[in-house]
């Protein structure tokens, strides 16, 4: 009780050994140089039969991919379309630990397609590759919605209807 009273008096409770070092806490042993704690969970590239495909829908908005990256020498985020003819890989970001993948940043196609999002981290002399298998879905209205800025010469009858012109059965 005396000890407790002292602690209350000084508004201080000391837990032996914690924190290990105020100014520079010891690095977490599960967090070596490189990337870890990725969200969503990495699922590997399509060629390796991944188990966790990530769905990217046009109306979802940005989908955040985030890892904890420690002591990196080089960080690169690349999108690799799978099965889209004659489409290149695109580097989307470098050096950052997160990207917000916007649907209109992705290669466009009128149909669903696969892609791999790849995070390459070089740290501590090692190269680490983290991959997410993506499925990119189009939105059926995007074929009938106005462009991001309306074109001037569209006449009233030709102005795209936001609800989308629809033909009957």
């Amino acid at each position, binding site marked *: 009780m005396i000890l407790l009273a002292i*602690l209350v008096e000084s508004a201080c409770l000391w837990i032996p050994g*914690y924190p290990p070092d*105020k100014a*520079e806490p010891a690095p977490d042993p599960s967090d070596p140089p490189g990337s870890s704690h990725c969200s969503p969970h990495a699922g590997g590239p399509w060629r390796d039969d991944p188990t966790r495909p990530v*769905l990217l829908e046009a109306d979802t908005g940005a989908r955040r991919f985030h890892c904890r990256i420690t002591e990196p020498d080089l960080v690169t985020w690349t999108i690799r379309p799978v099965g889209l003819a004659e489409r290149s890989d695109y580097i989307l970001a470098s*050096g950052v*630990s997160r990207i917000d993948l916007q649907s209109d940043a992705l290669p466009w196609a009128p149909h669903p397609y696969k892609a791999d999002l790849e995070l390459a981290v070089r740290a501590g002399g090692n190269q680490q590759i983290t991959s997410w298998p993506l499925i990119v879905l189009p939105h059926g209205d995007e074929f009938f919605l*106005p462009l991001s800025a309306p074109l001037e010469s569209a006449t009233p009858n030709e102005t795209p209807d936001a609800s989308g012109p629809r*033909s009957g*059965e």
Partner: protein
Amino acid sequence: MNTQGRVQPLLIISLSVTLLLGADCEETSPIPPARDFGVVLHDPGPYQQSYRSQPGPSRNWDGTNLAYVEMTAPVTITGEVQHEDGSGAGGVCVFLDGSGELGDLSGIADSQGLFAQTVLPSTYDLAVAPDCFVGTSSAQYLEQLVLDEGAAEPWILADVSPVLGQVVDTAGEAVVGAVVSVYQAGRPDRPLGVTVNSDSLGNFTFDVPAGRRYDIVVTGPADGSVPIAPIRIDNQVLPLLAGLIMKIEYPVLPTAVVLGSLQLTGGTTVTGRVRVEGWVPAAPHGPQFTGGAFRAEFETDADGRWELTLPRGNYRAKAFPRHADRSIGTAVQEFEIAVGTELVEVDLTMPGSTIARIEVRQSNGNPMVGAKLGIHMTSPPYYSYSETTGADGAWFGQLIPDIYEVEVIPPEQIETGEQRFARAHGQLDLLAPSPSPLDITLKRSDVVDGFLYTVGQTGVRGVHVLLTDPETGEIWDDTVTNDGEFPGFFRATLPR
């Protein structure tokens, strides 16, 4: 201190006494003010096999005690994807759409159609996709399923029937290479993952569950090689009665050849990614076509040239620089294909970049040396870069003209007793006529010690904790809970 991760005694004590830890006790500075913070938790689980990531409600730190964060315990749900005859459907993708981004989960059923997933108990929309949406097998959507621990009702894939169709123009010519996609009726956000191409006779076939209503969208392919704008057949019961063939009829529209080139301001040609978008107005004949957006995206040839045949309409071509090349900007060119036009030349000239300057100061006005800058574009192609402030607390360099979100990640401070700074954010506008430097002053911040626990007040080790602004969601700091002697404890920085 209980090294097994159970700290109930600590929690009880903390309710009755003011708790300061370690070196904090030695400080004579005033008690930091209380404040709220948001939290997002990413738990990789053992070998990243379990989903336990979750957002959390806003928390409060009183400035002295531990900040306590409770993590909801996940459950494992199991399900089975079956055909109508009760047999298991193997290899099917299952997507769970729960509340918030962290509720978007997925998995692939095993060869027997069995599926297991670690989730937070909640209500989910499910998409069950035999080809993972990429093929010709129809996905099925299941809404508002309550998923809790244990086995769910079997998810049944309905039997399918063939649908035959043909894409032609009003002159009777086959449209070859048209892309035919099927959506759930009235739900343009729900493609069924059924995509086929018209063949050399304009014919196509696909399979969908019979007797339901669908929207069918017919477009050109992604590379723009078929000059047609989209047609949508609405609310169509499939298959058609008596084996009728679905006929998609395009009006014969005037077209023109577009010869494009991509070059720098000085005239040097470059390769790049080009996106062409336009609006093709309705035509007096071909009643199924009521106007639509033409879209295509492709890579230029090695000499920077590209060629398309486009139907009449108004278009915009846009070219994006490569990520690595920050010396050039995005090119945009609008053009029109009018009736009677046979050839249009579109020269996309990529302008120069803009010099940007970002200055970071500490709360006392001194320059913040060695701060890491995350620089994110806010419009296509949404590139992100990382830079570091120099000895004057500033960075300057080339960027593609755009509006950027900038995140400042201050360096760790090694001087004993000196607080680190929480992250700060700003917006850099390089589209203004005379862009101003972005000046960010870091807020005075305090170190907070926290404890992440779950059922039984057990500390959860190795969880990535993002501490955020509860109003904007912007990240103030990130850390990982202790995975060693003090499981669940974490240390982070919050701004005042």
